[in-house]
């Protein structure tokens, strides 16, 4: 049953995830890009929020949270020119994770999200630059995404274990 209390709790949780994601994105911005050719390619800390939202709240809240944190993060820390990359990455990662979680566990889903995020960014770059040179980076970036995605999947499992010891996610 969805009463007002549940609704308020869901809203609060969503807002909290957006806030956490924006902070994570900001922290990530402090780390120098390990791959200067593609500034958008990172550890993907903020994707953790999409992942958490997917498992805790469902698919629709997850995409809402992803878009909200991307818009907020971009206007707070980045320039508008970074928006197409971030949006494409966030949306494709979400879509792939929605499908992936029917088959794989959390680390696997997280990995798929990270790989999809990079692929989307490369595709946007190729489109904006009007050159296919950047496709050359796909294998290298995919391997990096595998590592970061898998590790973040474990972070998510740990986070989930701890959160479930509290009452934060009950009746949600």
């Amino acid at each position: 049953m969805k009463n007002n209390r549940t609704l308020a709790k869901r809203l609060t949780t969503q807002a909290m995830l957006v806030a956490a994601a924006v902070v994570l994105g900001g922290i990530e911005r402090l780390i120098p890009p390990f791959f200067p050719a593609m500034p958008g390619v990172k550890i993907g800390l903020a994707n953790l929020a999409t992942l958490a939202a997917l498992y805790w709240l469902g698919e629709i809240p997850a995409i809402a949270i992803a878009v909200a944190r991307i818009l907020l993060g971009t206007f707070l820390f980045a320039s508008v020119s970074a928006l197409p990359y971030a949006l494409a990455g966030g949306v494709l990662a979400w879509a792939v994770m929605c499908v992936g979680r029917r088959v794989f566990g959390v680390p696997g889903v997280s990995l798929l999200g990270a790989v999809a995020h990079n692929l989307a960014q490369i595709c946007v770059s190729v489109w904006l630059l009007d050159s296919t040179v950047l496709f050359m980076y796909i294998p290298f970036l995919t391997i990096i995404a595998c590592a970061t995605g898998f590790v973040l999947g474990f972070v998510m499992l740990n986070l989930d274990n701890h959160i479930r010891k509290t009452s934060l996610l009950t009746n949600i």
Partner: protein
Amino acid sequence: MSDAKYYPRWRRDVILLAAVVVLAAALQFSVFKAGTQASEAVVTAHGETVVRLALGTDTIYTYEFEEETNEIVVENGGVFIRRANCKGQDCVRQGRIDRAGQSIVCLPHKLIIELAMTDANEPEIDIIVR
């Protein structure tokens, strides 16, 4: 919401990890055929070839478009961007490249430097069909 719903599916996850890594590694090795020496740098901006610089002769080429500039240096068979007025300076930080297939990208200026072999078999691309 039951935990079982997304409890780790270890076997599948590990297989997925291995499969993607192997696939990417295979792609990587098929794309980069063990560092062939490049002979020219092709500078492309906004989707069009700006200039082709032979790597045999040291030169400095300054790309200019409106307010955007990138100082491209050809030195000892390699290329790097010494100075640029782009945001982030990512192209400058990418450093020097000297192998065929490598590239330097300046996203804000939509500029790409790509190293190529001089190949006579390259198809003619300047035929414009209207």
